[in-house]
């Protein structure tokens, strides 16, 4: 392994352990006990929480803001795809033509989606007031990662630099708001427990 691989491995291991600690700690070690008699079931609510409850058919933050919703969707898919590809590069696998071009194109689109979210944050006064430096840094780091991976797909010699950059991003994940990669899941599970036990989720009515 090259020194770049080692740097990546350090970043990944640190990030993984920190995220795993956060997830286990929040979800399993400190789960509050529930005494009220349940009216509904939790499991269907958990499924609902990660599926229909997130969809534009249910959620105002989706159906009232479709461009932002789809930008966010593309951006997050691009992020997961980027990390997946970084792992492939780490294992010295490089997608061949035309896949490399296709993936690169997809990531270019997702990076643009990330950029649009960043621009929106800068331009909208209410959003600016809500934001702190971490919001801009996190958005920028991940957008650049996607762009970097898109370029690396076309120019393999960039892999060492990409591994170092990806390592830096991973070291930042547990520190700033990027750690919502963990807390998103635990929050939605807690919400599903809350609404599921009360018989509110899954929502049965047809219209929002």
């Amino acid at each position, binding site marked *: 392994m090259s020194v770049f691989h080692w740097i990546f491995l350090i970043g990944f291991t640190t990030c993984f352990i920190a995220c795993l600690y956060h997830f286990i700690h929040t979800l399993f070690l*400190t789960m509050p006990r529930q005494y009220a008699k349940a009216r509904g079931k939790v499991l269907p609510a958990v499924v609902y929480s990660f599926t229909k409850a997130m969809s534009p058919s249910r959620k105002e933050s*989706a159906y009232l803001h479709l461009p932002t919703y789809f930008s966010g969707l593309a951006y997050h898919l691009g992020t997961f795809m980027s990390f997946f590809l970084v792992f492939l590069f780490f294992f010295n696998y490089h997608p061949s033509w035309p896949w490399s071009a296709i993936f690169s194109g997809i990531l270019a689109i997702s990076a643009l989606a990330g950029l649009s979210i960043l621009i929106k944050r800068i331009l909208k006064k*209410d*959003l600016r007031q*809500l934001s702190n430096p971490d*919001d801009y840094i996190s958005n920028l780091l991940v957008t650049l990662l996607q762009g970097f991976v898109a370029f690396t797909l076309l120019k393999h010699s960039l892999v060492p630099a990409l591994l170092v950059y990806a390592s830096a991003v991973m070291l930042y994940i547990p520190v700033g708001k990027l*750690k*919502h990669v963990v807390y998103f899941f635990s929050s939605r599970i807690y919400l599903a427990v809350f609404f599921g036990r009360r018989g*509110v989720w899954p929502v049965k*009515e047809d219209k929002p």
Partner: protein
Amino acid sequence: MSDDLTISRQKALKALAEHLDGRLLSNLNSCVHCGLCGESCQYYLTTRDPRFIPGRKVDLISGLYKRYHTVTGRLIPRLVGARDLDDETVREMVDVLFGACTMCGRCTAHCSIGIDIPFLVRTARTLLSEMDLVPKGLRSTVDAAIQSGNNMAIPHNEFVDTILWLEEDLKMEVNDESATIPLDQPGKRIMYTLNPREPKFFPLSISVMAKVFYAAGEDWTLSSNMYDVTNYAFYTGEDRLAAELTKRLVTEMQALGSTMLVLAECGHGSRSIRWEGPEWIERPYPFEVKTAVELLADYIRSGRIRVDPSKNKLPVTLHDPCNLVRLGGVIEEQRYILSHTVSNFIEMTPNRTNNYCCGGGGGQLSMSEYNDRRLTIGKLKADQIQRTGAKIVATPCHNCIDQIMGLNQHYGLGVEVKTLGEIVADALVL
């Protein structure tokens, strides 16, 4: 903790530390500041004040968590929006978290992450309570309940006299000398609770439920010692006091030996007792708990009472109380009741779990400091009601009734506001 923190602020931060379980940690760490929640909050929608965006409310408490419980927040607070518990933060917390949030949970249902924002707001209120910063009206409501046994401090003899007077009325209305409103009778199946607003200002709503119980041949009683369904300590975030009020109800239930506690039409009361109470006292109830709405629906469904919808001819719409519906799971029963007791039922849009709060939740009706704001944000509800063209607004919550009556006057809606009990009683076939 820095030395310049006052003792009360240290107490607040200690409370935050003590409450840091998995659920709280999860919610404190999740907000991505997308700001989309603003469009689901009636405070923001009606005022466009960015301070009222739910994400900003989350920041008020998550900023404290970051400052005092995270490495980044301790070392580089500005980077992550960590905030000191200073005068400015405290002022904003009181104004926004008490004065600009009904804890209706609509933002949560639509949050892109799924953050339980009312839970965070309540936790922040706990901190403010530790600093003795609960607004005066809300403070005195809780204190009255603790000291007198009901939130309106109704003296015992006054309550008993009211019930005796209502019993005489009931006998006349149903033309049956044996009709009663049982008081403190042991061994009855049901112990029925009341919102103190009923004996104090709206005894009619006690009469109508007594009439329904009479028609159903129910085995029930009221308690003169502990009848208050409300628990405003839920809104001040004071778990210890909330537990004390819950324990009193449990003790009274056990003293009377009833097997079912029926909760009067009160949104936050139903939620507090049904869902939060067992958590506050850290044990399950040894009896069944049901809301009056569920009981009324059961009576109709089982044929225990007969109702005639043609007795309620005017168009009726339904307001869904947040704590009963979105946060309590009683969603279809009220619709079942109305579909059997009125001729013309019109749904509001949006409705059910997506409904807007009336604007009176979160203890707002107790906090006169925010009256103007409360009526302003009620515009959304007033518009919803107007669009239905209904002449009667039914809602199973006395708190919502007060707010909608206020909106009725303020916005000239020209509607009548009724409990479901009133609607059912009007439709009864005796």
